[in-house]
């Protein structure tokens, strides 16, 4: 069931919140081997659902009232373990809630568990998790994408109709594409980062997953709020994203990147991309070619800035106050051994890169230059949006790939983020939605919009989904 159907049935009292939770757990058990969850809260979820059923009228009109939800294990949940898929936080229980999980709770949803992910959100395949990889529901030998792989797989496997993720360089959109669902990375600053464990603070942004744009809209309404606890959260005019789905934004000018076929995109993804352009054209939209030859430099900029910030953000995990603490004779050993044992290989690699690029003597050559590239990409988009309403491009270079593939070639894995990273560097909203199917696997494409145009992005995706069926496909 899609979110829309689920909520309609709950609101019509055709199904109770408790039955929805029970269904979710039936599916969790059925898909145990996908390794989607790090924590599950069956008893609490049932109790919460009973409370909702008993107070039906208080919950029925809330945007996600009565609906089971899964949260990426990067969001702190009060009294409930929050691991970031790391040994470092294997038994960390926060005494506070993230704004995202609190907002979702207040919007009436029922948290059934915390989903698996790449360790500290660093990875594009979900293989860096301390708790083992998540498997792609479409084909178990393949990765679901990352870093929000658990949350994406959770929707594809039909366990819940909505889930939360975070996207720093594509961590919502890439797994959405690889799992055949819809995922939105909002404008940087739309959703509070309070209580969301930081990887790269200047790019991290939470967002919704659902099968379709409708589900993402309702969940975005629940997740986003102006929050004074996050200084980077932007004060803006409140929008109702679900309500704006029926708006008529008219015929759009859609930008496409000139020579996109030369960026190493696979045949199947390119074919879906071209087909989608046809559909969009039939819907009355027009296309404009954009010169974006700097696209590739985005990766270089990202893989300097993100590790730099991560090396600082992860300094707090030192074995002194909380998290993994090794036995040691002195303070330097305590740091060294706790961090060597607590962090996985990918995280350690990025901490080292980040430490290096911020070091005296290298700062100008790497960090400062990377920030310049970042500003250049941002101004490039500013220019684009003077002449187009949306930018359309594939989400990934290829479809879901086999596990263990890229461990021998990290550069190849980093390159996977080519098409998703620009939106993060610029802080722009972007959605990935299913737009094709090949080799029994889904394909995704994305719209990037101007700042705070989530309503336009969701509306356009929704209209596309009204005339296509790609988002309705489910793994057998």
């Amino acid at each position, binding site marked *: 069931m899609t979110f829309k159907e689920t909520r309609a049935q709950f609101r019509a009292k055709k199904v109770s919140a408790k039955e929805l939770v029970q269904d979710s757990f039936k599916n969790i058990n059925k898909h145990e081997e996908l390794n989607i969850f790090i924590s599950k809260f069956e008893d609490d979820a049932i109790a919460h659902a009973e409370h909702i059923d008993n107070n039906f009228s208080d919950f029925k009109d809330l945007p996600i009232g009565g609906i089971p939800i899964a949260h990426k294990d990067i969001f702190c949940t009060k009294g409930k373990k929050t691991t970031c898929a790391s040994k470092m936080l294997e038994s960390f229980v*926060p005494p506070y809630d993230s704004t995202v999980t609190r907002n979702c709770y207040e919007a009436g949803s029922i948290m059934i568990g915390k989903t698996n992910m790449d360790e500290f959100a660093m990875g594009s395949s979900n293989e860096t998790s301390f708790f083992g990889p998540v498997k792609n529901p479409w084909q178990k030998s393949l990765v679901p994408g990352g870093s929000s792989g658990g949350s994406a797989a959770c929707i594809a496997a039909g366990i819940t109709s909505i889930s939360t993720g975070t996207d720093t360089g594509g961590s919502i959109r890439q797994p959405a594409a690889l799992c055949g669902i819809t995922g939105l990375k909002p404008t940087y600053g739309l959703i509070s980062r309070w*209580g969301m464990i930081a990887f790269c*603070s200047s790019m991290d942004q939470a967002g919704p997953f659902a099968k379709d744009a409708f589900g993402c809209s309702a969940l975005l309404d629940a997740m986003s709020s102006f929050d004074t606890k996050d*200084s980077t959260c932007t004060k803006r005019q409140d929008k109702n994203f679900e309500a704006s789905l029926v708006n008529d934004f008219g015929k759009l000018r859609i930008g496409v990147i000139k020579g996109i076929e030369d960026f190493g995109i696979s045949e199947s993804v390119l074919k879906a991309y071209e087909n989608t352009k046809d559909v969009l054209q039939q819907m009355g939209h027009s296309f404009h070619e954009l010169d974006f030859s700097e696209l590739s430099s985005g990766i270089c900029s990202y893989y300097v800035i993100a590790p730099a*910030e991560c090396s*600082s953000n992860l300094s*707090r995990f030192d074995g*002194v*106050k909380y998290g993994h603490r090794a036995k040691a004779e002195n303070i330097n050993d305590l740091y060294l051994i706790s961090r060597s044992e607590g962090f996985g290989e990918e995280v350690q690699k990025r901490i080292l890169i980040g430490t290096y690029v911020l*070091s005296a003597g290298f700062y100008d050559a790497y960090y400062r230059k990377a920030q310049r590239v970042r500003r250049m990409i941002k101004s490039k988009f500013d220019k684009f949006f003077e002449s187009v309403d949306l930018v359309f491009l594939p989400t990934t270079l290829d479809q879901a790939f086999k596990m263990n593939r890229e461990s021998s070639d990290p550069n190849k894995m980093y390159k996977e983020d080519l098409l998703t990273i620009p939106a993060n560097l610029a802080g722009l909203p972007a959605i990935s939605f299913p737009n094709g199917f090949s080799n029994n696997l889904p394909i995704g494409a994305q719209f990037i919009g101007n700042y705070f145009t989530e309503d336009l992005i969701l509306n356009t995706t929704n209209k596309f989904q009204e005339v296509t069926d790609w988002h309705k496909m489910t793994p057998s």
Partner: protein
Amino acid sequence: MAQNDTLINGWQPVIGLEIHTQLLTNTKLFSPSINKFGEEANTLVDLIDMGLPGVLPVLNDGAVKQGIAFGLATNAEIAKTMVFDRKNYFYPDLPKGYQITQLHYPIVKNGSVDVDGKKIRIHQAHLEEDAGKSMHDIYDLESVVDLNRSGIPLLEIVSEPDISSSEEAVKYLKKIHQIITYLDISDGNMSQGSMRCDANVSLMRPEDTKLGTRAEIKNINSFKFVEKAINFEIKRQIKILESGAKVEQETRLYDSIKDETRSMRTKEFANDYRYFPCPDLVPYNISEDLIKEVKDSLSELPEEKQKRLIETYNLNEYDAAVLCAEKSIANFFEKVAENADALLAAKWIIGDLNALLNKNDIALSESKITTANFSVLIQKISDNTISGKIAKEVLEAIWESGEDVAKIIEDKGLQQISNESELEAIVDKIIDDNPSQVAAYKSGKDKLFGYFVGQVMKATQGKANPGLVNIILKNKLI
């Protein structure tokens, strides 16, 4: 810059100070925890101060206003946009593994203060958070951390190397102390660590155009130690330079017990702090309106107060300046002057009270002297209950015990004798007992008058009203 009177062995000391002052905000720089000294360990700590995962800093506007106030008081430039940076290093009392500070875009730049007619330039003053406190002497085998101090706002005031002697350094430090306490942005308490100082010291020949290599002396926590640490460091560097060796750029620690500075780390082992802009805080724009708001509510500054005291109480310039050196003293004076003779109060504060404070090296607020008991003391002098000499004794008694002035006078029987007939009887007896001195006085040895006064005082243990004694003696000795 060389001033010949500050040369030592032909070397010109070049000194710059970095002064850390804890700001008197209600809450911490980036968290809602209470900013207070002396509470039970780890009771003024919230999620942000502990650096828990996922928590974020939110800037305290109060600290921004206090930074602006300092800038206005030192004729500095206030930043249009200030930026916070992260200074990364590992230490157990630094929960996040970085300190949020300001490197390139501080709140205040290019200020100056006047120290005895010399302009000492302030390079910048920036906002940053304090670290927690590591304690190594509570348990045998373990060190513990108190995070109450973690996140308390600091204003770090960095001078240019315009200071030429240890004495001048102390004067500059006192000037800064005066400004921040007058502005009410810090209590400036060095013994509690709310004001701390690092000194950069180097030497050069007067004819040199390039500064010498400097050593930085860390964490000096009293005015006296600033002077001693710099003096030690100057001597140490002279010895090195005159032996033909080079001063090494390093960080040194002042040991007040041994009165020496010791090497902490050399440049080679200096931390690479990997500064970069803190992505959790957006650049902060300081509006003209905010600056105006701070300007309009700025507390009275030392010069203004001095001027007002002269006008209101007829004080002379010198007395007013001494009283205004410390805001607490000036306020104390004004409070006492509400209930007692102002000029007499000024005289006693500047003289005897100041002497006691200096001798015991404590602040007025830490002493047992209050505006209440001091006012009574001044009243008792004015109304001739006690003489000035006795008053000294009473002041010392209050200093020791804090007891009621009237009670001390009563208990010790210090009341002045102003009873005329009683004094006449004493004077008569002294005249009878000293016929030769009387004769000498009458023959023109005027100076002997003092001898008779002394004898009366001796006979009354100093309690005789001196004015009255003079009159009686003069009458009787004609």
